[in-house]
């Protein structure tokens, strides 16, 4: 038995990092042969409801630091769940539940501030917390605060992350890497001279605008959170059975994020986003979708970044302008290089 197999018998941080290891853990331990709505491993469960569909999803939020430039764990916990619903086509969340696990000694003032963020984010998304739960754990048993939210919404038509077809265009709704880079800079005290801000935001309004404009032509959607655009593209390509070719020069990346990523040796494609979506669109509808996105404040930097092909299903080919390479499925946590 190799050392690595011994290591793999315990949960490591990579099992929660949104990449290959997490997917394998879910497949092997949690699904373990199970069928039904969860087996699709999409952003939420699809439950038939008359002529329409109930979308149901849940997400636990841990982040260090709890408050970061551009948002806090309150905004994150609402946006995360609202966005998972929106990615499935449910842009009117009926309500959210909110469970909080708080560490003994946590400041009530900070908690109130986070609660205000939750309320503001709910107002932004046009929804509300409709049930909640609070637990307190002894000092050291939890790192500050964990928030779980669940959400429910109705989708007239379900959009999956597996619906891409050869010829479809891939659109990203705005600049990538903002959230992960802002959090990484805040966590480690990096200063790059230019402020970095998380993009955390509920996207249901933006997605509603897209679906209203060209709903029938949207073939797949996914929000590129942990694992970044690379991880989301892999999941979409793998489930859809298509290859994806990305033109790196078309990726919208803020200069400050690109500079910080270069310094740390991290590819912006691997960095988490909390206010962006990847949208697969039939080629004829690209213009309408881009127009709908760009007229919304969260979609101003939307861009076509690539296209789906029949060849090499499940792989992502990146054209860098200097050559081509395969974009691999990320795994583990992002670590800056040594030199």
């Amino acid at each position, binding site marked *: 038995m190799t050392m690595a197999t011994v*290591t793999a018998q315990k949960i490591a941080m990579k099992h929660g990092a949104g990449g290959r290891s997490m997917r394998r853990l879910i497949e092997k331990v949690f699904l373990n042969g199970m069928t039904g709505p969860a087996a699709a491993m999409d952003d939420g469960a699809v439950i038939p409801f008359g002529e329409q569909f109930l979308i149901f999803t849940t997400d636990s939020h841990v982040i260090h630091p709890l408050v970061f430039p551009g948002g806090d764990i309150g905004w994150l916990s609402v946006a995360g769940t609202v966005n998972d619903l929106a990615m499935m086509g449910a842009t009117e969340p009926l309500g959210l539940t909110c469970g909080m696990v708080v560490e003994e000694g946590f400041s009530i003032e900070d908690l109130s501030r986070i609660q205000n963020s939750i309320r503001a984010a709910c107002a932004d998304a046009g929804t509300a917390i409709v049930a909640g739960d609070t637990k307190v754990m002894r000092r050291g048993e939890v790192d500050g605060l964990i928030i779980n939210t669940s959400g429910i919404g109705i989708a007239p038509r379900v959009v999956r992350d597996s619906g891409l077809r050869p010829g479809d265009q891939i659109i990203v709704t705005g600049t990538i890497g903002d959230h992960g880079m802002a959090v990484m800079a805040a966590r480690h005290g990096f200063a790059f001279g230019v402020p970095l801000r998380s993009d955390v935001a509920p996207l249901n309004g933006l997605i509603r605008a897209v679906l209203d404009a060209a709903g029938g032509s949207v073939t797949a959607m996914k929000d590129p959170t942990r694992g970044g655009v690379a991880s989301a593209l892999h999941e979409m390509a793998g489930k859809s059975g298509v290859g994806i070719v990305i033109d790196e020069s078309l990726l919208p990346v803020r200069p400050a994020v690109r500079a910080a990523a270069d310094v740390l040796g991290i590819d912006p494609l691997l960095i988490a986003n909390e206010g962006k979506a990847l949208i697969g669109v039939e080629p004829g509808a690209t213009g309408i979708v881009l127009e709908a996105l760009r007229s919304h404040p969260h979609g101003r930097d939307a861009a076509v970044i690539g296209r789906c092909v029949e060849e090499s299903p499940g792989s992502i080919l990146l054209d860098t302008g200097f050559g081509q390479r395969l974009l691999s499925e990320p795994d583990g946590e992002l670590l800056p*290089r040594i030199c």
Partner: protein
Amino acid sequence: MSDAGVLELKFRDTARAAQLSAALARTVQEIGRAPVSVMHVCGSHEQAIARFGLRTNFPRDLDVIMGPGCPVCITDQPEVDEAVALARQGIRIATYGDMVRVPGSAASLADAQADGARVDVVYSIDQAIALARESDEPFVFFGTGFETTAVATAAAILAGVPPNFSVLSAHKYIPPVMEIVAEMPDSRIEGFVAAGHAATITGWGVFEAFVRRHGIPVVVAGFEPLDILAALARLVELIRDRQATVENMFPRCVTRAGNVVAQRQLWEVFAPIGGRWRGIAHIPNGNLRLRDDWAHVDARRRFSIDLHALWDSAPSLLAQQCVCGDIMSGLKNPSECALFGAECIPDSPVGACMVSSEGTCRIWHEYGIARRSA
């Protein structure tokens, strides 16, 4: 997208890259034999080559080999074992990211961490010192990397560290290993690309004696795609013209003398000693150890490190098939390893080259290089 004040990088002009690629192809053709083999000795160069997909446009007859340039990969197993033993003895360890996952002879720091040891990933020694200041418990910085990071370690020690802080040095010095690789009987290397950031410190003058001794040209290169293409284009010209000289193609950062202050700090704190580089060879003067003046911050002298507990397990059969050493010496490439992409993947690495983001195998695997050529 309008962050004023941040300039777009100007070393990513694709039209200029196409011109350089054409020049590179022309010169390789003029040399008229195949393959022309050159070696770079830096994980960051391989990263850039892979990240920008440069290999897809290299001339077919040019072999660009990554040598022993990954600081994580060449850290020897006994050095990892020392860190693991200290961690298991209850001492807090801080180190750079990938070092946590590198297998020692029996376990990695990640294994020790899963068993309850306290291991922190830091981005600089200063961050480790700040962590150490938060308590009185013994705290060891496992310092790895070449002269680039060794200088940072030296400067921090000279500036003064808290009494509970010590350094376990696995730092390495690049110039001596180039000698060893050039002298290997099977070596096909006709020219070296030297790492621009290391040369920023050592100066390009450090390679002059090497070039005289071995008659092999050295070109110092930066890390943008155009830097690398320009350096390779110049290196094959030197090979074509049988001109064994040092050329500095990274003049915006590198001078002949280098950073003299940093060099003084480096040698004030460290002494070069011979030691093994994992999988390669014993490298005379290749390891950097703390001088006697700094015994009070040297973890090896402050703690008795008990390695016996780690010696029970023999290396696995798989590990014995690993050819990381040959890969780092430029004798093989990852697709010539039977384990590559099968038993040895980033999830369950057999050799250190698959662990580090600067390891040849990891880079080739992550950027799908072998899958395409297979």
